[in-house]
């Protein structure tokens, strides 16, 4: 089986998968949850008409009120209370009391102030940036003794391209879900993206490790060595992903409402991570290598 020879097909598949999400990201962005925007979410048990709930909420001066029904006979009431922070809790208690006659009882409540949401957003971006940087450094370090013709840097950079592929795929999918299905991203989503990044690199390293080993033992074209390495690790890549995906699928189906989208993000990302480590990261090493052969460095 020649996987490397068909690398242009694999790159095309990746582009087809990622581009719609990226377009959605540019056009619609992500639907940010209260962790990032500030506001409150009250989960209530019981059924009441959305207009009644909205009327109660408006009476207290709440803004941006949205009500979504969950599968288990509960509803999520989202709102933003423009009152000063000292009064928000009082309004919350009043709202709770107002909803009781409608037959609604509070199951959970969450409120995030604007100052907190700013620090969460900052930490989320910082965490992703620092994690990516730390991983490139680690790969360059772990592969510092890689035999020629590949440089430690090319291992690091291609791993990061595969990582970005997975991160953007997940973010793109959630941008589309956000626009068309109202799915919000919260701090758990950031956790999911970071985990996907970690897993993507984890998977890529296993293949790279085999390439490094084979470069020492096998003679022949670089392309063939890479191709053999992918094939030799294929059973492992698929089996590992399968076990992780199976556990995640169990969590997705039976794990309860509150981590539903968190698990979905992991599912999508880890599937993408498996694809990218087989079909993107290692073929990119070959593309990089061939490019350097065709364009030798000119001496200054």
């Amino acid at each position: 089986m020649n996987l490397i020879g068909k690398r242009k097909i694999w790159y095309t598949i990746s582009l087809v998968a990622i581009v719609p999400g990226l377009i959605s990201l540019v056009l619609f962005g992500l639907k940010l949850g209260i962790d990032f925007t500030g506001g409150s979410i009250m989960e209530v048990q019981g059924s009441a008409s959305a207009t009644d709930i909205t009327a109660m909420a408006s009476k207290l001066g709440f803004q941006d009120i949205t009500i979504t029904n969950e599968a288990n006979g509960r509803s999520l009431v989202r709102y933003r209370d423009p009152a000063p922070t000292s009064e928000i809790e009082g309004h919350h208690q009043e709202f709770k009391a107002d909803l009781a006659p409608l037959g609604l009882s509070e199951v959970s409540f969450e409120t995030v102030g604007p100052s907190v949401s700013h620090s969460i957003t900052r930490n989320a971006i910082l965490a992703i940036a620092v994690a990516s940087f730390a991983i490139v450094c680690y790969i360059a370090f772990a592969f510092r003794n890689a035999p020629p013709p590949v440089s430690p840097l090319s291992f690091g950079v291609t791993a990061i391209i595969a990582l970005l592929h997975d991160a953007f795929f997940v973010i793109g999918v959630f941008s589309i879900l956000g626009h068309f299905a109202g799915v919000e991203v919260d701090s758990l989503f950031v956790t999911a993206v970071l985990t996907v990044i970690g897993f993507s690199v984890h998977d890529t390293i296993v293949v790279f490790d085999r390439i490094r080993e084979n470069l020492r033992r096998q003679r022949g074209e670089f392309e063939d060595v890479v191709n053999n390495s992918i094939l030799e690790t294929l059973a492992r890549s698929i089996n590992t992903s399968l076990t992780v995906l199976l556990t995640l699928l169990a969590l997705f189906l039976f794990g309860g409402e509150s981590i539903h989208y968190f698990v979905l993000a992991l599912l999508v990302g880890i599937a993408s991570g498996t694809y990218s480590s087989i079909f993107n990261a290692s073929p990119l090493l070959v593309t990089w290598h061939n490019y350097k052969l065709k364009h030798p460095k000119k001496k200054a």
Partner: protein
Amino acid sequence: MSTRTKLILIAILGLVSLVLAYPKEDTLLHKIGFKHSHLQVREGLDLQGGAHLVYQADLSKIASGDRASAMSSLVNVITNRVNSLGTSETTVQQAGSSQVIVEIPGVSDATQAQALIGKTAQLSFVEVDATTNQVTDTGITGSDVKSATADFDPTSGQPIVSLQLKSGDATKRFGDLTTQINQNQNLRLATYLDQDLIFGPATVSSPITNGQAQLSGNFDVKTAKQIAQLINAGALPVPISLVEQQTVGPTLGAESVRHSLVAGIIGLGVVALFMLIYYRLAGVVAVTALIIYTALTLTIYKLSAFTPYTIVLTLAGIAGFILSIGMAVDANILIFERMKEELRDGKSFVSAVEAGFDRAWSSIRDSNISTLITCFILYTFSSSIPIIRGFAVTLGLGVVISLFTAVVVSRTLLRGVIMTKLGRNPKWYGLNLPGEDA
């Protein structure tokens, strides 16, 4: 150490951790004569129900050099107030330079606690001139009070708050004040808690020189108790406001635990089934290692309660744990695939097992280190986001324990298995090799 000794040690480790991980391990241990208190995995607020509150302190009026001490006394006062509710396992901790996180298990207490925490609770005694209505601050405050108790007035039966002032200067100043008010017909004594008038203005029938005062307002027993609690805990050194809260009802928490448990068991079952079908005898090894892994992890969760680093299991933490099961299997898969390759190359079972481990080790090490880096960064950036922190801790711990079970447990078990004749039959590994095994 011989393989036999290692096998025995692993059997002991597996057995002990299985017993300790068992949910009702105390009754189990009791039967064989061990008495000890029940061990429990500490559950986060999202699982047991409760409130997570984040308060922002307003430090703008505090000199920058005094801010650290203002924050630590703030944490103390809030701790005192929350503890006065008698709720167990409440945690109060400082986050960042100006925030305080309060976590209270049990929702009914949470509403009460919120009412108690937010108040500045500065007690002040003032002198009121009845003719001019002029109010003069007396300088006597809550910090002059030694203790406060909710009580009943012996004659009227009305709820009151009894105060005992600190002996020495505070008692003397209060004595002077009451003497002065007693002697001047126009003066009245009043007491405020923040902006609320809780006593007076009233005349003083006789000077109080023993430092014992009674506040009799028109309050009920509950209010009297709350006032006493607030005075005892002391006033907040700086004003605070609630900037974030998360309340989870106990039913939702129990539901989450049930769902996660089901998901975990199904996930573990499906993975075990897959490993058994695909890797046969090696699959048995992997599943045994996986069971030891799960039991060991739960045991560590339980035992961590005895250390300062108690692991608090949250919903995201469970997800991290279940994800780590998948990753724990990965190390086994890497090893088995390598071993099969070596067998196909015609190596003997003994050298195939050893080579399988040696060759797979660099992949296992490098890939797990990258996951640990992610966990470490998640942990570092999530001091105020407990859900993320819980996830990072369980995933990271899972990676470390799975390295141990893959490298020590799986390897030793495999070495033990190939000592038997059955264990050296390639068919038992899903391999069809030409010719029989040597």
